[in-house]
């Protein structure tokens, strides 16, 4: 795997991206801004579910306000993330933090899709005066926790061996 990735990292596109003085920093900046947007979007929806924010508007209206921004951010995060992987494949693919992050990302997206389907089919969510059911409320809080963990794991990619010790494959190279 290390050998394959080392060879792969020598492909012309990766070399160009990795040696560019601006590509990786620019991708990281966009990645942070997009992550800020998706995190606050998820947080505001959870706060609306708990009755702490966006009062006077239904859950469906709140979701319609924040979800397009969250989806656009997810696209930006994916694209900038892919460029960073291409630029530094060893640093990303070998990191345990990267794979835990991807796992939690899948969990977060799965919970969100279920939640969105519910919000758009159940008429109660279009009524600003109806309290959401406790199960769905818990799901949105869980999404916030998942995104918090994703933020931590994203930063941990840069310190994989330090965080996971001998468990991190990066410690061995």
């Amino acid at each position, binding site marked *: 795997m290390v050998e394959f990735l080392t060879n792969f990292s020598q492909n012309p596109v990766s070399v160009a991206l990795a040696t560019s003085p601006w590509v990786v920093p620019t991708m990281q*900046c966009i990645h942070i*801004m997009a992550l*800020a947007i998706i*995190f*606050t979007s998820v947080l505001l929806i959870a706060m609306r579910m708990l009755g702490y924010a966006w009062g006077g*508007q239904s859950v469906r209206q709140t979701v319609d306000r924040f979800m397009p921004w969250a989806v656009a951010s997810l696209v930006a995060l994916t694209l900038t993330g892919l460029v960073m992987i291409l630029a530094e494949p060893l*640093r990303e693919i070998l990191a345990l933090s990267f794979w835990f992050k991807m796992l939690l990302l899948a969990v977060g997206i799965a919970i969100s899709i279920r939640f969105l389907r519910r919000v758009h089919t159940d008429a109660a969510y279009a009524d600003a005066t109806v309290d959401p059911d406790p199960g769905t409320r818990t799901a949105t809080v869980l999404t916030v926790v998942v995104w918090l963990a994703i*933020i931590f794991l994203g930063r*941990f990619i840069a310190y994989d061996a330090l965080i996971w010790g001998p468990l991190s494959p990066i410690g061995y190279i």
Partner: protein
Amino acid sequence: MNLDEFFASLQYSAIGEWVNSAGPTFPIIESLHVVAIALVFGTILIVDLRLLGLASTSRPFTAVAHDLLKLTWGGFVLAVITGVLLFLPNATTLWLNFEFRTKMMLLLLAGINMLVFELVTVRRVGVWDITVPPPNAARIAGLLSIGLWGGVIVYGRLIGFASAVNDPFALLL
């Protein structure tokens, strides 16, 4: 005591040494800093987009701002605490660092922009609270805020490329 001595005393203080000690202390503080940035930038962006008349237009400006104020300040306090902790172990080089100084300058300008907006434009909020788009003074404040806070993120990220980073792949590139 001159400034060099002052920053050296910070760097070699017990708390500075603690942040820099082996183990996951530094990455954890850095992750918390990213969470704080996400809160500050994400919530400010929601307010700025409302000021520009581009989003959340079905709610009065004061309702949008009220919902987000505590999150913004909570995030800002967390960003300052974690930011000071991250500054300490590299105090002697960081206070001379161009990217760091630019970031502090942009933070100051963002603060001035907010202060002018709060003291001048918000005074007449009763007139434009539900107006879409809001008056030019409010839109200019929103646009300046997005630019300045975006700049804070960019220069904050660039500090990491200017100072020595413990990157196991630095030698491979």
